């Protein structure tokens, strides 16, 4: 029974250290050294108003915008209040129909040839801000036509928004869809 005292006291001390001092120290240092990241990597418009986070993808379906990856979040696509994947199994008939519908939607815009998987398969978070450079390139003709822009100008814009592998070797090259679309609208 003499071990009841340390059980309770040690728990209180650990709560103070691990649940108080530690997270507050991380918050304090993070806010001082990496304030933008700690607050959520928000993008501001010309007036300085926050109009989205560069890490959180938004839904786009208009022909004049580049489309992001499909999202399976509840209520509506890319809903940050319910991050989630589809959790569909690979042989689920409903899932295969959904992918088929997405393929058709792309084909209807004039896309030919094999479609990059990430453009018709939902992301893990439902908030994936990126598509591959190939998936962006595939959409250039549609966006160009809708906006009356030249395809070359769009190619340059996509290239400018393509992030390479981190440190030249980690992960995959990618294009941030929200940032690209904001630039198209001339907001950013």
């Amino acid at each position, binding site marked *: 029974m003499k*071990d009841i005292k340390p059980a309770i006291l040690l728990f209180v*001390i650990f709560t103070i250290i691990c649940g108080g001092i*530690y997270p507050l120290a991380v918050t304090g240092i993070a806010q001082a050294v990496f304030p933008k*990241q700690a607050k959520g990597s928000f993008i501001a418009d010309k007036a300085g108003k926050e109009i989205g986070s560069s890490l959180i993808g938004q839904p786009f379906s208009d022909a004049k915008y580049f489309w992001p990856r499909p999202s399976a979040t509840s209520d509506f696509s890319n809903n940050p209040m319910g991050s989630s994947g*589809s959790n569909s199994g690979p042989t*689920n008939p409903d*899932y295969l129909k959904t992918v088929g519908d997405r393929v058709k939607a792309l084909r209807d815009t004039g896309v030919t040839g094999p479609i990059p998987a990430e453009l018709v398969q939902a992301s893990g978070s439902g908030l994936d801000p990126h598509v591959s450079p190939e998936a962006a390139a595939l959409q250039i003709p549609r966006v160009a036509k809708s906006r009356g822009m030249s395809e070359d100008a769009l190619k340059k814009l996509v290239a400018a928004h393509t992030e390479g592998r981190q440190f030249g070797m980690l992960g995959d090259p990618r294009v941030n869809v929200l940032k690209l679309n904001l630039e198209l609208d001339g907001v950013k």
Partner: protein
Amino acid sequence: MEKLEWLQTALFFLVLLATVKPLGGFMARLFQGERTLLSPVLGPVERLIYRVCGVSQEDEMDWKRYAWSMILFNVVLFISLFGILMTQHLLPLNPQKVPAFTWQLALNTAISFVTNTNWQAYVGEQAASYFTQMVGLTVHNFVSAATGISVAIAVIRGFARRRTSQIGNFWVDMTRCTLYVLVPISLIAALLLVSQGAIQNFSPYKTVPLVQAITYDTPKKDAQGNSLKDAKGNPVTESVTAKEVTIPMGPVASQEAIKELGTNGGGFFNANSAHPFENPTPFSHLLEILLILLIPGALTHTFGVMVGNSRQGWAILGVMLFLLIGSFAVLQWAETAGNPLVAKLGVSGVNMEGKELRFGLAGTNLFEVATTGTSCGAVAAMHDSLTPIGGMIPLSLILLGEIVFGGVGSGLYTMLAFAIIAVFVSGLMIGRTPEYLGKKIEVREMWMSIVTVLIAGVTVLIVTAVAMITPSAVASMANPGAHGLSEVLYAFASMANNNGSAFAGLNANVNFYNLWGSLAMMLGRYVPAVAMLAMAGSLAEKKYVPPSLGTLPTDKVPFALWLTLVILIVGALTFFPALSLGPIVEHLTMLGGN
């Protein structure tokens, strides 16, 4: 794999191996009470804690008192977390005004975090306040990890010591582990994660406008909030337009760091490490994988040093590495081959359902084997959407008993139970008395090892069978057919082995899974821990038997291979029938084209 993916993977393992010796040696010195690099700074804090708690470093415990202290401490942890979850609506730091948990969900969640499982039947950004996340869950991430490490250290002392009943002081081990290992590494890791974009703040959730408004259908509700139905009984929907979205905030990075380091795995957000605020870049991704494997890897060296022969530790690490890399290779193959049913629709390439683009395929797969080989259970991709054989890999790694690096501490002591079984079986075959590390393996050691190795598996199979004949449990499945069985099998494998990841389509927040799952988590955590402490108690009392010509050397390659075989045979004998009915049937169905 592309050339750069090979390079990234190889570089990762080099970095991991480079950490084993320094961190493992540091922990050996720490737990043997020697001076370490951090002693000048943390020594006074440590001694102050002992004085306040009335603990003496010289007051060593026998195994019964050690186990009793561990259980007692876990009861305190459970009560506090259950209390916080039931009263979070009354507590501070709740800017979103989230309500209390139901008692069933609070029970499941409290047991889940106390047992280092971190199974989550709730959606973090909707259901948990900042107070719950920080003072409740983050603290439990630390102390449940420290509990596992402390038990492992006590078991190692059982092997290392001779003719004594003392295996250390639980309070001292807990304090040293938390203060010198978990907090400093978490602090550095959390800041690195923030530098990449993981958030760390206490702001209320932020609302931003959508560039393109989105229209969607939602169930229409009457004034009382009940869903309306039409004459045929179908739900009535109405069209709604969203012009803005709410982005959740919070102290994420500080929890993220210990979530990986302590092989806990409970995400701040529902999407866990797939969420860009938890895991923003390829670098943060690899850092998180490293954190997951860091302590379980290093503990093998701590073990080697403390038993006086570091090659014993390398042999164990070799077995773990072999199984991890083998699993990675199969998963990488399966996901690259992709889903032929999707390819038929005109889609190129790999299986990307449930995956994030930024990590790359090899990076994603490495995370998934690390998180299920250890008992972490964080996910950077949705396991439910892996190809059938791909999904069988995380499931199998969990079913093997969380020994492929394993949970912090628990992985090592479960692996030692397998080593004892391997020594015993080989002893039977060559007709010698089995010995391990100079200790005779007798009836008691065998009993404890068998209980440790089999408790989780037996629990998984029985409870999954019960689920299959319970209509409310079957109704929770999200996918039809063989995949539905995989979802339930995965759920109980995950809980009984304290992993916490899921085939997450399964609707687990119902009484059946909340309550049976709570039982599975407790059995899987405490039965092996107490059994291994009991074994440590009896081992510590034995005298040392010097190796003779007839002794099987356990620090050489042949033993490592033998141990690998024993693990695979035990796993296959226990689970092959269940796996055949789930992933294997589904794989054949997929190849068959329907």
